[in-house]
């Protein structure tokens, strides 16, 4: 009884250009820029997207927990449970549950909110995966490692990397969301992707491109958290955090455009 709804890209001029670029073998930088340009007006909605705002709130809660003496208590106040026995999966699940609870209560799901939750889960997984902390044992073991991983966020540099992973994940998720509406039509000998292997390589290159482009927000995020985290005893206001998130997202889209121009020169 299970099936999936699949669609193609709209037949507007800008989306036709995206299809054309994919079909004619343009590189990932040009395609990424064209997608962002085609989705331009739609992406303006991101600023008010409940999912994006909730993801930023949770990221800030993690950052505050990282610099707290008692991260578990800080996270509990934000709706995220962390115990001595928490595994990496438990932590990801707890953050994801809190995210879903808020969005479902507000009844404001959107495609972007789903992309944002995927990027958040990805960034948290990356944070908890840091080899120097757990030597690969985190999956099986315990909350101390999870706490240690969260505490890394006390360092602005680590927060910058964490936030970079989130922004890179959002960009890659968005691009995949749109491009999956055309890549499958470009399959076969004589077309852009002769085999699924070639498609996989393209998607991998796009992921790398997004990650590299997201470097633009790493220092920005590190400086920002350094500047604002300790200023107020009550933490960072939601409004300020959301403004920061939106600026970072804009920086990322501008960087994608700049890199496309560089490739084209």
């Amino acid at each position: 009884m299970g099936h999936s709804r699949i669609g193609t890209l709209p037949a507007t001029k800008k989306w036709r250009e995206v299809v054309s670029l994919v079909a004619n073998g343009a590189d990932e930088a040009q395609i990424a820029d064209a997608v962002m340009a085609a989705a331009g007006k739609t992406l303006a909605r991101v600023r008010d997207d409940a999912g994006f705002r909730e993801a930023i709130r949770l990221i800030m809660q993690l950052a505050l927990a990282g610099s707290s003496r008692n991260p578990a208590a800080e996270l509990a106040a934000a709706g995220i449970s962390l115990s001595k026995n928490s595994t990496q999966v438990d932590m990801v699940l707890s953050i994801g549950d809190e995210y879903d609870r808020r969005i479902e209560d507000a009844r404001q799901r959107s495609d972007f909110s789903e992309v944002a939750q995927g990027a958040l889960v990805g960034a948290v997984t990356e944070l908890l995966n840091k080899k120097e902390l757990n030597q690969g044992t985190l999956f099986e073991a315990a909350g101390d490692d999870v706490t240690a991983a969260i505490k890394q966020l006390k360092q602005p540099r680590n927060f910058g990397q964490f936030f970079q992973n989130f922004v890179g994940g959002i960009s890659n998720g968005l691009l995949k969301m749109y491009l999956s509406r055309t890549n499958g039509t470009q399959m076969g000998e004589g077309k852009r992707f002769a085999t699924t292997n070639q498609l996989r390589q393209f998607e991998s290159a796009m992921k790398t491109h997004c990650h590299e482009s997201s470097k633009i927000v790493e220092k920005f995020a590190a400086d920002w958290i350094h500047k604002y985290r300790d200023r107020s005893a009550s933490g960072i206001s939601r409004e300020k955090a959301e403004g920061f998130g939106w600026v970072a997202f804009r920086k990322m889209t501008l960087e994608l455009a700049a890199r496309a121009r560089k490739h084209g020169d």
Partner: protein
Amino acid sequence: METKHHIFCGGVSPQNTGADTTKLVLNLWQNRPETNVRLTIEHLHEKLYKTIPAQFHDLLEIAAYVYCGDHALKRGALDVQTLGANWRRRMHFHIPVRRLSLWNDPKINTVLRQTLDYLSDDYYDFSFYSAKDAPLLQDYFTGFDTGTLPKQKPEQVMMFSGGLDSLAGAIEEIVVKKRMVTLVNHQSTPKFKKLYETLGKGLMDKCGDMKPLHLRVEINKAQSLNKEYTQRARSFLYASLGATVAMMLDVRKLCFYENGIVSLNLPVCAQVIGGRATRTTHPRVLAELQELFSLLAGEKFTVDNPFLWNTKGEVVKKIMAANCGPLIASSRSCAHTWETTNEHTHCGVCSQCIDRRFGVVAAEAEEFDPLRQYAVDVFTQSAPKDADKIMGAAYLEKAIQFETAKEVPQFIADNPEVRRMLRYVEGTPTGVAGRVMELHQHHAKEVTGALKTLLGRNLDGVIKATLPPDCLLRISYETGSPTTMPAVTENGNALPTTSAEAKTNPDLPMPRYLLRRGAGLWKVIYDGKEGEIDLGRGISLVAYLLFNPPPGGLHGTELANRVFGQEILQEASLGADGDSTRRKIEKEAIKWNAVMKDPGASESEKAEALEELQNLADSLNVTRMDSEGGADKQVRAIRRAIDRLIEKLRDAKDRKNNPHMALRAFGEHLHKHLWIPSSRFSGTSRSRARAGVAGQFTYERPADVVWVE
């Protein structure tokens, strides 16, 4: 904010619901002036009928109304432009019930709402009213059976859809474990009544003296209520029917049988977000249904899926192990019911058909699943529509990704939907996540194993490239030959295979006849001479017909669907949203008209504006046609788009204002060999129109013309 739909049911008077809302009236209570839905339950034994708690009677009606509302209210299109805001509907049901205080209990109301919200990715609200003159439950039962009663009381109620998985479930419980069960089957379309009967009879023959009760339920509704095909809330009706029957039989267990891959239904590609992947038997949905039914029953009521940890291949193996292979042919898995016929009971290209093919090959059961029942053999043939091509490639690619998964946390990061089931299955979240990864790795092994089997059989066609280039076998097989990706200039816009390229590269012979879409234009080579054609709907339609000439012709509506795809058709057939779409199109047209009239606009800007205006005019035509409900009008608009192209080609001039020989010859060729409907539609005499093909388009290729794409 999305439009809110108010659905007034069972005679509740429609109220003033404010601006930005729509109203729908549904009534399944018979013999009322506004009755437009009919629920019938067949084949219950008369001695088994008994009164059930009134809240289950209410549940049955609520589920029927939700089912009809889900069908009647279109999801908006334009997913891409709205980040899915139009996909999600806000529906407020107003329903009379017999147990008002119970349904207004916040706990029950919340579980009901949350279950449906997650199941269908919409937003549900309910207002309940005290029912007056409500019908008896007996009114829904028709044709009570009077034969011999089963010897034993059933242990559980099984949802029997007639697909492979539920067939395997029935065989497992009745034939193998010798358990008495009751099967409940919802017939969503009369199209497969005969198939169900054959399957039912075949199953009964295998059951010996354990023959189960087999109840069939039908919902008939007014034709005007059939607008939306996605039907994401359908399993709420199934489950509610099953729960009601279970209460009647004094059973407190309801089972769905669905393999774990389909039950979890992880998004096959990145565009499949939220409920675009069905959640029919998702563990969260089953857990919430269990909670709802338990609250209504006042005691534990179990809803389960015993096949959660099985793959499709394993499910088919269960059928084979019980020597029931011959029943496979009568089962039906296809999700595209509207595309199936008596001859082809499966479309062959939807995810369910692909899943079935892989599962059957993996279980070595192909002899029982005749290939002739599939309209398309997705392994060796091209899928006709872009959406189907995407599905095939995505299915394959996803399976390969699963096979390479190593660490559980990374598996969750790559498939974030996994975490949404972890709290609803017994075990620690970490342990369950590990099982989910293993299940998907097992599925991936089945898929790649089946691929190897099929590649082995078709290796000649793959290596010699006699199979279509985009069939699943060829896109999965890396030949190691030099890549055929087109050459691209730095701006990414250059087209391959130009005559200049052919001159400098002797290995690339220039084809005599070529039609290829590039950036902003189509490249055409006709009889060795080159030309360029602006983008437009006419040339897109023509290109499809040239490369996919349908032998018996293709109706205009289907042609448009295949060429422009789901998005455009949906955009054009918004139904309730049609007016707003038209307004948007008209607003856009004003903008481009201003460019045309602007004395400062360059020629290229004006050319772009003209192209946009032509596209908008086509969109407007299609939108109008659809809202007026006339397929013939749609055919007319398609014909006009093609006609406009042909006339333009026949008068084409080059930059020096001389006749463009290549384009004119191409135009003449199309005029002669493209068959388009005219007698009913054009009003003018047309030599290439034929009797008996009204509304049908095709292309008859002369033997000496071979088009290269």
